[in-house]
């Protein structure tokens, strides 16, 4: 938005541009995610594309930090949930989780720490 620079609140119209170039995140979060969807002749399912499904999501949004701060209101927008376990992109996470658990169990067995032994009777 070269012509429409960020307007500082209380700033006077015609004040010189505060940002020389629009931030790419501002543009991408709009042009990729929003705008009216009409099926054209070239069928491209944006969700098929690796970059757009995972890398770009991560690239555009900074979600971990926000969640840590307890800010998650955008999650009512169903978009992000695709990264959660149980959905397509979350599947690898679930699998990773399972593998780690199995590995932990093996290690526990080797160390002789079973579920039963984990609780120590009386102290």
């Amino acid at each position: 938005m070269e012509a429409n620079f960020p307007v500082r609140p209380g700033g006077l119209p015609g004040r010189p541009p505060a940002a020389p170039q629009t931030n790419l995140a501002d543009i991408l979060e709009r042009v990729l995610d929003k705008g009216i969807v009409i099926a054209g002749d070239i069928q491209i399912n944006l969700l098929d594309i690796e970059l757009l499904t995972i890398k770009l999501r991560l690239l555009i949004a900074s979600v971990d930090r926000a969640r840590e701060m307890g800010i998650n209101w955008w999650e009512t927008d169903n978009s992000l949930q695709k990264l959660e376990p149980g959905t397509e992109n979350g599947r690898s996470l679930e699998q990773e989780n399972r593998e780690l658990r199995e590995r932990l169990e093996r290690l526990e067995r080797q160390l002789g720490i079973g579920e039963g032994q984990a609780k120590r009777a009386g102290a």
Partner: protein
Amino acid sequence: MQVPSDPAGDDLKDWAARKAPELLARAQQEAVAILRDALVEAALAGRSAEGSAAMPAAAAASPPPERAPASTAAPIALEGELLWVYCVLDARAPQPAELGGIDERFAVERVEAAGLAALVSRVPRAEFAAEPLRENLNKLDWLERVARAHEAVLEAVLADATIVPLRLCTLYENEDGVRRMLHQEQAALTAALGALLGREEWGVKLFVDAEKLQEEARASSEEAAKLTRELERQSGGGAYMLQRRLERHLREVSNSLASAVAADMQERLEALGVEVVLRSPQNRELSGHEGEMLTNAACLVDAAGLQRLQQLATQMEERYDSLGARVELTGPWPPYNFVPGGDAAALA
């Protein structure tokens, strides 16, 4: 780590067993964070690299791409052009005389039907047919160029007309296809144009200073003061543990402070009587912002609504001055966030 003195070592096992799920979860979180960072880095590297440089993943996944279509007997011809559609407007609405398209060789043209006009420009099949397009979309530098060009056209038109912006990559074989689309979608497009008339999309972001947030947390917390006093009397291992506890506590307090400020902003935005869409905060590496982004929203406003929005921005900066609060308004944007069907492809 403090090793329990129990000679049987049961305490250690006990501790390990109790801690295992937590440690596992933490390890997993860290693994995800590392993976995320690596992906972001790769994507950013791809972006800054010279022109055609693909990102590692894309490069690895695909052999040398579209440059030699003839030799591979491509099923679809990659010669000639397709029509890229930018937006739809009322057929009576004006548009700037000379507008360059995504491909600089082709200007923006107008295709009219059903009382509507679609703004289109020719783009080469070699880049935009389904196969090459899939590849190109994986290159952040390519995507950035196309996205910015698409945006530039919309902004130029936006100055004098109400528009319905189309999602990136709405492509047709020819003018007839575009006209068919205008007929088919006439009702939805006309309704959208009506709803957007006289209103603008503005972006609203609220930032606070991370250090000031922490300072405020420290000043407001009894517990922090207590821990700090204790810390002054301690040394060695005890001091280390206390220090960690203090840090954790401060993080928790500043997080809930941040969350409260964000909730306050949300409430006030929603009280403005304008349409509001809340987005997730942006990645600093792409947006280049400073401070903590607590709010990332878009509002659809008329002239009076914009004034109220500007007042709110000033209010919030004053109200949270001690946190170094800064409200950034950007716009007017093409009303991407306020047209129907905007959620389907769903990025964060």
